[in-house]
């Protein structure tokens, strides 16, 4: 608005903060709409009960962990389409190995896939879009060969179940895991050389390289971290549903990208705050939940989901000065 441009606001928001504020406002709007709906139809306020909100955060934890890794990769200006089967492969290998080594195996699988992605992108300089797509197909083939195309019969270990579905003091463990991952990622992005290099690469890789940054190592590390977080999400998801199954990661790739972008990160890399990604995840999970409470058919859900993403991004753009 022109008035806002003439008089600087007292609490001026940085360009990275605006999306977070808008998305948070939309989350509150969702809660209001959902509550109004349940008040009218059932006379209850289910959406505002702590139990419901905690449950949403628990479901959001899986997407949140995938999105945290995806954000690292998006910030350097790349994308990881292999998370779907990295997630599934980690879950399947973790349940196959079982015992105390289940979780380390799952994380190691994710890390290994992430390293392959990173090496291909950083050293062979294959566009990440296609390299990770091919790795995804390979992982899918390997896992289908491993399981014979059926859901593996092996079950998740007790520790995996506890981490995903257990509760401590009434709060789901998965939320603690998500919070732990979030703190690490936020600190790394804000306070470490590695984190700042990620932003620098995303802004202009040549400049980062000329400034003496170890760009290739950082790219490999970002992909490795993304793979490992996908692996962690796979381990947790297997724990949540007590076993691994085919295509368990398919529903996480595009929503993870959407969550990162709704959080205000630039899809071309270089800008975006981690808090935005968390808000984006909560928004997507809550949107799905409210729509299913309203018994919206799948057709309407998909249309609303797409429309929300477009509207949010248009809202972030409006009022911003023309960018070069």
């Amino acid at each position, binding site marked *: 608005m022109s008035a806002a441009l003439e008089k600087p606001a007292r609490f001026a928001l940085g360009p990275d903060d605006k999306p977070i504020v808008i998305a948070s406002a939309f989350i509150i709007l969702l809660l209001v709409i959902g509550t109004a709906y349940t008040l009218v139809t059932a006379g209850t306020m289910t959406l505002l009960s702590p139990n419901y909100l905690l449950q949403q955060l628990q479901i959001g934890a899986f997407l949140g962990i995938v999105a945290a890794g995806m954000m690292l990769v998006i910030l350097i200006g790349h994308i990881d389409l292999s998370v779907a089967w990295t997630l599934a492969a980690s879950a399947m290998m973790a349940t196959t190995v079982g015992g105390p080594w289940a979780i380390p195996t799952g994380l190691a699988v994710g890390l290994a896939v992430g390293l392959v992605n990173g090496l291909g992108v950083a050293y*062979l300089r294959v566009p990440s879009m296609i390299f990770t797509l091919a790795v995804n197909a390979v992982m899918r083939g390997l896992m289908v060969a491993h399981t014979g195309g059926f859901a593996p019969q092996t079950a998740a270990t007790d520790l995996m179940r506890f981490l995903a579905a257990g509760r401590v003091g009434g709060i789901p463990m998965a939320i603690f895991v998500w919070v732990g991952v979030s703190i690490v990622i936020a600190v790394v992005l804000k306070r470490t050389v590695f984190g700042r290099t990620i932003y620098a690469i995303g802004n202009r890789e040549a400049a980062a390289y000329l400034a003496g940054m170890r760009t290739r190592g950082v790219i490999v590390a970002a992909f490795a971290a993304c793979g490992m977080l996908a692996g962690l999400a796979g381990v947790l998801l297997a724990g949540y549903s007590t076993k691994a199954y085919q295509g368990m990661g398919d529903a996480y790739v595009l929503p993870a*990208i959407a969550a990162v972008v709704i959080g205000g990160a630039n899809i071309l890399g270089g800008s975006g705050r981690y808090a935005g990604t968390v808000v984006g995840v909560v928004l997507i999970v809550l949107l799905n939940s409210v729509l299913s409470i309203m018994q919206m058919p799948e057709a309407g859900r*998909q249309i609303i989901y797409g429309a929300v993403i477009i509207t949010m991004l248009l809202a972030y*753009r409006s009022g911003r000065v023309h960018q070069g």
Partner: protein
Amino acid sequence: MSRPTADWLIRLRQNTGLASAIALFLAFYLFYNIFHPKGFSTPVLVQNADEAIALAMVAMAQTIPVLMGGLDLSVGAVMTMVNCLASHLVIGSPLQIAFGIVTCIAAGAAFGFANGCIVVYGRIQPIITTLATGAIAIGIALFLRPKPGGKVDEDLSWALTNSLSDFAETYGLFDGGKAAWFQPIAWIPAALVLLVLVILLIWVPFRRTVIGRTIYAVGSAEGAAFMSGLPVDRAKIAAFTLSGVFAALGGLFLAIQTSSGNADLPQASAYTLNSIAAVVLGGTSLLGGSGSAVGSVFGALILRVISFNFRIFDIPPLMQSLVEGLILLAAVSLGGLRVLQVKNRLELFR
């Protein structure tokens, strides 16, 4: 001192990607026909063509945004949407069928146009725009066809999924397909003719227009294209619109082939991902600016012929994804080997 290089050699060097895609396809397809019990026969060719055309169309749809340096994650969804629309409209009297076909193509074009407008005027990146509009297209498809079903005109379905002689017989052309001059070409699958017609009548003329060239220019250097006074915005909108048209043609053919509509989300995403793979296999740079829709058609054919080979060698279809992935990895990694020749690492950052 050096001898002038032959013209065809220069052209070959400029189109290495396309040439290797064609060579790879021919090698795979020859292999397939040699080992197929009924290899080199019309029924086999017709069946293969029918299975490959939809992906070839969707790959062409993907090519145009990629040439511009963007990406279209909605091609599979638009194909599915038009597939569902066609299962309602392409039936009845010839006039109704014609109206249905036109409406289907118009729907795809309108969807692509909307994508283009959001990208140009909303200033949202193509990949995110189409991620969102893809969800909308799937939603519309589910709205049109909550359950798989519907029907497409049987004559049309039969005529377009068989050889030209069947096509002529169905519509009583060329003495019911018995005309003497018609015999040498009567064995060609109608679907293949359709694909070639689409390439010759839509892609080739489009590429030669100012808009078509602008798309390549935008992919190479958008700033330079803008400074040169090229219609950048119009080219972007046209690119997505044409992408929508190709995706619609793919959906239309899928409806004609399966004679039904199916709002299948996994199928839509499989088509989208395969279209990206086909574009890359066809020698189009994902960074934009070089490549062609013809290459992508061959990329799509390569992907399809791999699965044909799986069938005759009785390899469990479960392994297919692994082999497809490995071939794709090998293809893109071979392209990555040029990195070893680069002397100045700054050249790599583009």
